[in-house]
Every structure is written in C-alpha cells, then in structure tokens.
C-alpha cells in the first residue's frame, strides 16, 4: 500500500479537508470509495442529542492498522485513510470516515466495507448515547454487526 493514514480525532472532522487531501494522493487509480458514518438521533422515542465515545489510545490505532492490513492482503488497494471521532459528538456529525482507493472500483468498495465491518467489532471504541431528557446509556454490541463481520470469514 502506498498511503495509509489512521487518526483518532477529539474534534469535529473537517470532511472538506480530508476529501481534498485524498484527492491529492499521487496514484494511478481509477476508483476512490469514501464512507462517512454519521450520528443518528431518531432511533428512539426520546431523541439522542449526542454520543460520547471512549477508546483505548494506541491500542485503537494498532487494531485499525491490523484491519487495514488485512484488507490490503485481500484487495489491491493503494491508499487508505481511516478517521474516527472520540469524545462528544452531536447528531448529524460524522463519527467515522473511511477512504479506500484502488485501480478498479470492486476492490475499493469491498475493502471499504470490510474495514467498516471489522472496525465495528474489533476496534476498541465504546459508544454512549446521551438523550434529550438527560439520561444516557452505553450502546450494547449488536448481533447484526457480528453477523456482518462473520460473513467475511466464510
């Protein structure tokens, strides 16, 4: 892989900056796939106002690096950027941003989805939902996320 960047951000992600940075990578690729995960607020009767995300510094970056390496071992991606927020994140703000780049779109799409599926079950982040009525609760790990991760193993 020619370019790999993994960063954890406590402040809001400047997506215009990161799109520009991704466009400036010197490659001969024909495909760039970007996934942006946003904070949803309307899953429950009481709206979520924001999330609070905790992580395990340095372990997080190492685990994401392993995920990206596993993706690069399966698909010929030339470049990858993974950004993830921590701390307080309001609804509609980006929480995660994954860019994968390859000569052809199939590899860029597949690698991007693989990275997201693995990130959700393997990277040490913990998400707390904070509601408009002042209550808060830790989000439980979802079976659907584990199922999506397992599909890559079969």
């Amino acid at each position, binding site marked *: 892989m020619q370019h790999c960047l993994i960063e954890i951000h406590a402040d809001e992600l400047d997506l215009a900056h990161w799109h520009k940075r991704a466009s400036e990578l010197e490659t001969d690729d024909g495909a760039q796939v970007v996934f942006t*995960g946003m904070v949803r607020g309307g899953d429950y009767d009481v709206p979520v106002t924001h999330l609070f*995300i*905790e*992580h*395990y510094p*340095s*372990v997080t970056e*190492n*685990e994401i690096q392993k995920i990206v390496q596993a993706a690069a071992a399966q698909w010929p991606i030339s470049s990858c950027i993974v950004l*993830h927020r921590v701390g307080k994140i309001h609804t509609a703000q980006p*929480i*995660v941003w994954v860019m994968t780049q390859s000569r052809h779109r199939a590899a860029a799409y597949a690698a991007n989805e693989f990275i*997201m599926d693995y*990130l*959700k*079950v*393997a*990277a*040490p*982040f*913990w*998400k*707390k939902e904070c509601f408009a009525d002042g209550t808060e609760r*830790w*989000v*439980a*790990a*979802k079976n659907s*996320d584990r199922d999506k991760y397992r599909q890559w193993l079969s």
Partner: protein
Amino acid sequence: MITIKYFGPLADEVGTSIETLAWQGGSTDDLLDLLRSRGAPWSSALAPDKIYKLAVNQQICHGVAQIDDQTEVGILPPVTGG
C-alpha cells in the same frame, strides 16, 4: 505493581477506570481470579460467562497470557465503534 485499565460500561460497573495492584507474577487467568475474589461488583462484572478481552502492554490477547510486573493490563468489554 501492575496497572489495570477498565473501559466503557465495564468501568462504570466496577466504579473505576484505572487502578494499580501489587503483583507477584502470573497469568491473565490468575489476575481475573484475583479480581473476582474481591466479590461484588468484580465477581459479576468479570464473571467467566461475560464477554470481554484483555490487553497486556497494549496488545490484545488471544488466549491466556503472562503478566509481568510493571505491566499495563486493559480489560475491554465488547466494542461498539463505527
């Protein structure tokens, strides 16, 4: 001494995110047995049927690992990022 870090809902459950502990050497299983022997909330939060991972010196363990003195041990409940 070893340093133990707890994360996410597990930190809330045991009431702390970090502690230091006198350590004579042993494995990750020995550490879990020692913590469970404190009784509630440790015994329930770290019960064998609960799902969590351990990281020794910031490397996530797959199986039982040795813990030396001056080690950092992280205890990680199921993750929910992305």
